[in-house]
C-alpha cells in the first residue's frame, strides 16, 4: 500500500513542476463555466422548462466543469505510450500490480487537480457566479459518494480502452470514440432531464451518466431522495461489470504480451 501511495505522491509532485499552468487552468475552467452560464442565460426565461432555473443550471455547469478536471482521463494514454515504447514489459516485471499502479498514479493527478484546480475554481466560481448549496446534507453525502463512483468508473473506462488497444493498437481512435460517447451520454453539459425522451431513456441505461449527470443532479436534489438507492445500485452494478470485463481482458492481454514478447 505504501508503495502505491508513493506513486500517488510522485504523480502529484510531478504535476507540480509546471507552475505557470495552474493559472491557465483556472482561467480555462472559468471560461468554460462562463460560456455555459451565458448559454443558459440566453435560453432560460424565454422558455419555461421544468427544473431549469438559471441558478440550478449555473451550479450544474460549475459542478461538471470541476468534475471533468478530477476524472482519471490520462490512463489509456499512459498505457498506450508504454505499449508503443515497449516499456510496458519492464513495468510488468516489477513486483507490483500494474492496474493498481495506474490507479494510484492517476489518483495523484486527481488530488493535484483537486487542490490546485477544483478548489480554487470552485471559490472563483462561487464568488463570481454564485453556487447553490447542496439540496440537503443527505444529498451532499450522496454527491460525495457519487464522486467516488465517478472516479472509479472513469478509471475503469480509461483502463478498458487501453486494454482494447492491446488488440486494435489504435488507442487514438478508441479514445475519440469514448470521448464522443461521453459528450452525448454523460450529460455534463445538457442534463439528461432535458434530453428528448428516447435519448434520455438510452442515456439512463449507460454508465456514462455517472460521469456528469448523476453527481451534479444528486447535489442539486433533482434526483428524488427515494431514487438515490436505485442510482447507487446501478452504479455499483456498472462498476462490477466493468471490473469483470477489465479483469478478463487483462488476463488475455498479459498472455498476448507474453506470446508476442511485448
Amino acid at each position, binding site marked *: 500500500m505504501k508503495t502505491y501511495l508513493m506513486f500517488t*505522491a510522485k504523480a*502529484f*509532485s510531478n504535476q*507540480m*513542476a509546471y*507552475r505557470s499552468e*495552474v493559472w491557465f487552468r483556472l482561467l480555462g475552467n472559468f471560461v468554460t463555466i462562463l460560456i455555459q452560464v451565458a448559454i443558459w442565460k440566453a435560453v432560460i426565461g424565454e422558455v419555461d422548462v421544468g427544473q431549469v432555473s438559471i441558478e440550478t443550471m449555473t451550479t450544474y455547469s460549475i459542478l461538471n466543469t470541476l468534475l471533468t478536471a478530477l476524472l482519471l482521463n490520462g490512463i489509456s494514454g499512459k498505457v498506450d505510450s508504454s505499449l508503443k515504447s515497449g516499456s510496458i514489459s519492464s513495468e510488468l516485471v516489477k513486483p507490483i500490480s500494474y492496474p493498481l499502479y495506474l490507479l494510484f498514479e492517476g489518483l495523484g493527478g486527481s488530488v493535484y487537480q483537486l487542490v490546485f484546480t477544483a478548489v480554487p475554481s470552485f471559490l472563483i466560481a462561487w464568488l463570481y457566479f454564485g453556487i447553490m448549496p447542496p439540496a440537503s446534507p443527505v444529498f451532499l453525502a450522496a454527491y460525495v459518494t457519487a464522486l467516488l463512483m465517478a472516479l472509479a468508473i472513469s478509471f475503469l473506462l480509461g483502463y478498458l480502452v487501453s486494454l482494447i488497444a492491446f488488440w486494435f493498437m489504435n488507442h487514438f481512435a478508441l479514445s475519440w470514440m469514448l470521448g464522443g460517447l461521453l459528450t452525448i451520454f454523460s450529460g455534463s453539459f445538457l442534463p439528461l432531464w432535458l434530453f428528448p425522451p428516447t435519448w434520455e431513456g438510452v442515456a439512463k441505461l449507460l454508465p456514462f451518466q455517472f460521469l456528469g449527470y448523476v453527481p451534479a443532479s444528486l447535489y442539486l436534489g433533482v434526483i428524488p431522495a427515494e431514487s438515490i438507492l436505485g442510482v447507487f445500485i446501478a452504479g455499483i452494478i456498472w462498476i462490477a461489470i466493468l471490473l469483470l470485463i477489465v479483469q478478463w481482458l487483462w488476463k488475455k492481454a498479459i498472455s498476448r504480451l507474453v506470446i508476442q514478447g511485448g
Partner: protein
Amino acid sequence: MSIISVSGVTKIYRQYRRFPGIIGSVRSLFTRQYSEEIAVKDITFSIEKGEAVGYLGPNGAGKSTMIKMMTGILLPSAGEVRVLNEIPHKARKNNSQHLGVVFGQRSQLWWDLPVTDSFELHKYIYKISDESYRKNLGFCTELLSLSDFINKPVRQLSLGQRMRVEIAMALLHEPEILFLDEPTIGLDVMAKDQIRQFLRAVNQEKKTTILLTTHDMKDIEEICPRMIIVNKGSLVYDGSVAALRSKLGDERRVVIEFAQDPGSIEISGLTLIKEEGSRKTFLFTRNGTTVFDYVSRIAEKYPIEDVSIEDVDIESIIRRLYKQLAAEDEESQGRQPILVGGAN
C-alpha cells in the same frame, strides 16, 4: 583562407532552476531563478579545406554546441564563427546547401517509408541534379553497401544500417564540409569499421572536409590526423595525434621474449607490469636514455629471442589527459588551458 575559422567563441546557456520535492515545487510556482552555464569558453581554431578533424571531450564539454554554432543552428554569445567565409547564422540557408550534417541520435528519415523516399526528398530539397544524384548515390551505395536495405522501410533497419543511411544522405548534395555528431555511438564493431573506412575515403577521394565529435578514440585514429580536445568548454589541445602522443605518451610498453625465463629481473627505469613465463612486459618512461639502451643492456645479461615496443594506445593518453586536467582543476581552480598548442 580557412574553410572554418572560430575565434574567441563563447556560448552561455541559461538554465532555469527547479526545486526538488513537493515543497520545492510549490516554491517554483512563485520564483523563477536561473543559473548561467558556460558551454563553450573562448575557443579559437581554424580548419583548412580537406582536413579531417576529431572534436573530442568528455560529456558536457560543449562539443555539440560547437557543431551547432558552425552549422548556424545557434549563435555564439561572444566571438566569431566563420564557415565557408560566412557567418553561419546569417548565411544559414545558403551555407546549408554546402554542409552535410549528421546528428547521430536524431534521425531525419521517414520512419515508415523506404530509404529511397527520404533520399529523393533530400534530392528535391537540395536541388541536386539527376546526374550528380545518381553519381553520389552510387558512390555511397557501393562503399556503404546500402543496396541490401535501400528499399526497406527505415523502421526495419538496424542502428548501424540507419547510421549508414544518414551519412549517405548527408553526402548526396556533395557538401564541402561534413559535420558528424557521434557517428559511431552504439554501433557494433563491423558497422563502426565500415563507417570509418567510408569517411576516410570521403575525406581522401572527395576532399570533403570532415569534423566529427566522438567518444571513440578509434574514430580519431582511423579518420582524423588532427584532433581538438575540449574540456568544460575550454580548448585544451589542438594538434596532431602524434604530437599529443609525444607530449603525453612518454611511456612505452616493452615486451621481451627471453630465451629462458630469467626469473625476476630488476632494471632501474623499467617497471615490470606483466609476467608470462619467459615473456615479460615492462613499462618504460622516457628519461634521457632510449628504449634501445635498456634493451641492449638487458640483452647483455640474458639471451633475448624477440623484442617489441608498443606505444601506449591513444585512449589511455586521453584518459591521462582528462585525469591530469581534473587534478589541476581541483588544485588551482585555474582557468588556463594547460596544453594549447602543438602545430597546425
